[in-house]
């Protein structure tokens, strides 16, 4: 009896260990443990330990003593209403509101571009991705430049009021409404990119079959397309939602003037004030909130049996015809997505060539900030050697992070997709998502501490690009794993089985079969991680040294100096670098993005 019981337990375990997705999964889990669990555990621990700056409040205590002081401060003190409950409510309103809007707009656009004969597809795609490339503060800043009025004590009238004389109500300029809208503009690219990838790699025969049975357009969307792209929808939902929980830049610029705080803005405030105890507590709460969301969605996705939409059968590329409104719809969509894409960009370009911001005379134009020398001690963005190094660092780091992320996307996506429903798959998904919720400053601090000395046989990587690459890679894991999972879930299991009949070498199957099939999704992983790394600020500012400076860290100094021309020029260089990244992806994969 005992023997057979042992037998029953041990055999599947050993067999499991030999299956490729389990091996890959174990490797992924080890990496996640080292790079995610340890940093987060440290943050959780520190939320329970007395920080040195609070020793004054506890005579006789020592730094590092166990305490519930910070949890009490955040959850149950006279401060709680201001630093936790109000921000919590605002965070939920913003996150739910903007996630819903982003999903609706992003998915609708994705369907139009991938599955209909709408014109200007390339332009629409470019317009959707452009606002995502821009650093978060640029669109928010453009929004205030556009809409603010002279009745607000902040002073000068905005563009709209200057030109038309119309003044919008205050809630349009600052508060929850513009936060939600601007965040939609910034991040609806997630839903769009992931859904487009899923829709274009879908087997078209399914749609045709439905059409032949006389199904209406609406029925096809609802009964055929929607279920097939569900994994992509879930991925975009999770990414968008978690971005909302952690978003700082937009609420900071558009919320604070109306006294609207979200959890991320207070978290940021507490780190700048050196109140790390409060910050750690809020971080743990944010991680828990996202954890619950991911748990719920992964349960939802785990219940569904099949998502394989990419099978061996070739599909023809018949697109849904939009009929005689084709052009009108196309122009409407281009206008809609073009404004948030080009208006901020245009404003930035304009402001990078003005001697003083807002001076529109001919004499007020200058190229000094691009190619000049010695403008209050600085050289133009394109000629300063320090800037050139920052440009190169930014490009190199983003590129390497992008490439490693693709490998991670493939490995993790494979382990999750093939092990769907198992505890390991769920664990990988959840762990990979955690870095997204750790504020950049906190994550950077932990990495600094972990890697500033030698670890075992490895020398210290402090002050090297390696440290920046490693940290950025970890912060980009959520994108990589999400995109990878989406891509791999679409590949039908029988394709791999067919491959296995020809060769026993799994690496060959991966190289010859799985990677080509998942190409689009993997390219999305590359582009997403490349872009986010290029514009990363809060994380890298903890880790850069004079020789490893990036563009974003150079830019902040210019805002402080009130030399926005430089900051704007740098933002434009960032956009250019990102376009180069997208171009590389296109050449490497032959895919249109």
């Amino acid at each position, binding site marked *: 009896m005992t023997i057979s019981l042992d037998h029953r337990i041990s055999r599947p375990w050993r067999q499991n260990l030999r299956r490729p997705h389990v091996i890959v999964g174990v490797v992924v889990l080890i990496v996640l*443990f*080292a790079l995610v669990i*340890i940093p987060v*555990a*440290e943050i959780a621990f520190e939320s329970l330990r007395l920080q*040195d*700056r*609070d020793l*004054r*409040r506890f005579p006789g205590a020592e*730094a*590092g003593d166990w305490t519930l002081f910070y949890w009490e401060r955040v959850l149950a003190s*006279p*401060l709680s209403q*201001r*630093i936790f409950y109000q921000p919590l409510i605002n965070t939920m309103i913003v996150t739910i509101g903007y996630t819903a809007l982003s999903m609706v707009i992003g998915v609708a656009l994705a369907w139009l571009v991938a599955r209909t004969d709408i014109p200007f597809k390339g332009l629409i795609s470019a317009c959707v991705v452009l606002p995502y490339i821009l650093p978060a503060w640029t669109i928010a800043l453009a929004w205030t430049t556009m809409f603010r009025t*002279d009745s607000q*004590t*902040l*002073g*000068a009238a905005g563009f709209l009021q200057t030109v038309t004389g119309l003044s919008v109500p205050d809630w349009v300029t600052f508060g929850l409404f513009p936060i939600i809208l601007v965040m939609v503009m910034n991040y609806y690219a997630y839903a769009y990119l992931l859904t487009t990838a899923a829709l274009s790699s879908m087997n078209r025969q399914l749609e045709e079959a439905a059409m032949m049975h006389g199904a209406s357009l609406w029925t096809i969307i609802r009964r055929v397309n929607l279920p097939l792209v569900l994994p992509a929808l879930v991925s975009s939902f999770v990414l968008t939602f978690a971005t909302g929980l952690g978003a700082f830049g937009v609420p*900071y610029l558009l919320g*604070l*003037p109306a*006294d609207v705080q979200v959890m991320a803005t207070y978290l940021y*405030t507490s*780190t*700048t*004030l*050196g*109140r*790390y105890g409060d910050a750690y507590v809020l971080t743990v709460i944010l991680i828990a909130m996202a954890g619950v969301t991911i748990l719920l969605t992964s349960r939802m996705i785990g219940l569904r049996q099949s998502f394989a939409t990419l099978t061996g059968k070739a599909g023809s590329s018949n697109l849904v015809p939009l009929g005689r409104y084709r052009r009108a719809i196309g122009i409407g969509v281009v206008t809609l997505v073009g404004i948030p894409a080009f208006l901020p960009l245009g404003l930035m370009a304009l402001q990078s060539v003005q001697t*003083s*911001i807002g001076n529109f005379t001919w004499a007020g134009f200058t190229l000094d900030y691009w190619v000049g020398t010695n403008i209050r*001690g600085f050289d133009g963005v394109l000629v300063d050697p*320090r800037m050139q190094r920052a440009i190169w660092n930014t490009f190199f780091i983003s590129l390497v992070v992008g490439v490693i992320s693709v490998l991670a996307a493939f490995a993790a996506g494979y382990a999750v997709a093939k092990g769907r429903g198992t505890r390991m798959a769920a664990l990988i998904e959840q762990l990979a998502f955690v870095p997204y919720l750790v504020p950049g*400053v906190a994550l950077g*601090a932990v990495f*600094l*501490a*972990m890697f*500033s*000395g030698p*670890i*075992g046989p490895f020398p*210290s990587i*402090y*002050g090297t690009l390696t440290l920046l690459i490693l940290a950025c890679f970890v912060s980009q894991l959520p994108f990589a794993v999400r995109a990878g999972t989406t891509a791999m879930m679409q590949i039908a299991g029988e394709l791999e089985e067919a491959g296995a009949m020809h060769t026993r070498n799994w690496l060959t199957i991966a190289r010859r079969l799985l990677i080509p099939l998942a190409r689009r999704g993997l390219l999305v992983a590359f582009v997403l991680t490349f872009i986010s790394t290029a514009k990363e600020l809060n994380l890298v*500012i*903890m880790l*850069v*040294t*004079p*020789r490893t400076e990036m563009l974003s*860290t150079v830019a*902040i*100094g210019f805002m*402080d*100096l*009130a030399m926005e021309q430089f900051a704007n020029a740098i933002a434009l260089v960032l956009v250019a670098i990102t376009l180069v990244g997208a171009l590389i992806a296109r050449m490497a994969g032959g895919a249109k993005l």
Partner: protein
Amino acid sequence: MKHTLIAALAAPLAFAAPLHAQQFEAWMQEAQMGDFAPAQEDWDAVLEAALSEPPLQVYMTSSRVNQPIATFNEIYPDLVVEGVNIPAAEMFERVRRERASGNFNIGLLHADDPERYLQQFGDALVSYVPPEFMDVIPENARNPLLTYRYLPTGVTYNPATFPDASPVTNIWDLTTEEFRGRVLIADPLQTGSILTYFVTLAGLHDDMAAAYEARFDAPIELREETAGMEWARRLLENDPVIVGGTRDVAEAITNSEDLLVGFNNFSRMREVPTGRYNFTFAMDMAPFDMVNLPTHLTVMAGNPSPNAAKLFVRHLLSDEGGAPWFEEGNPSSRTDWVPQTEWIQPILQHSKVDVDYDHLLAATDDFIDFWTINR
């Protein structure tokens, strides 16, 4: 592997530890700083020693960090100084982490947040004053930290709207009905200098109480511990307009055609001659015009380039090395400094109060909580 993971887990959990006393002593002796500083430096010998040191790393909250490096390299072309411009919060956290892990790369710190400075690194900071400057930098600018320059902060208004006189003659004016909704404050929780300004005022009693009596002809009735704290509370009850930063304050004042005042730093005035802003500081205000916020320059004990640090400190204190700040509205702490730029001249006439380090250390956190609850 297991060992590595444990090491990785344990490293970040260590709290910022001071240098071991002996190490610290040995380093100070070697570097000839602190108690071991000589009465006269042999600068040729210092230069000689500096040439064999690794590049000096200078961390500043100011984006002008590369300008003095450029002038420094004109004098010492063979010395490499690496400048990093970084916000205060990140700077302090980095220093803390670096020290906790036993790394001592950062050579020189320059920041304007004395409270955080002393709170976190009190025992790791060395105030190095080159002997030739000893006589021109007063004692209170040398202890407990070397004050390099000041960031005077006070009440501003638009001189085009009030060409004859300041609309504010007493700081208690700001709590009256006339100024309801007409005082701009850059959120002290976002702007360190404004926080230090408020904490300093909140800690004052006698001067603030006297100013109250002068304004209202009646003794003050307190709900808070000091007259200064009572002032902060009444100001908050007077519906001030709280904005993101001092630049928003400058812009709003510039555009105001009606009564509007706000707190700002004197160095923000460097954009008045350029035409970008138009504001000026209230003069002859009771109890004083400005709080003289100090900005510090400290050598980090344990760093590998003490001799280069000495040379660079000397350069920064000089007129030439300090020009990027001194002539842009951040007065030098040197008593023999004479402003060359015209718009800076009035700074010598404003009455100022100095910060009290002990009070800043004791009261800043409580003020942050007070502000969070009552704003």
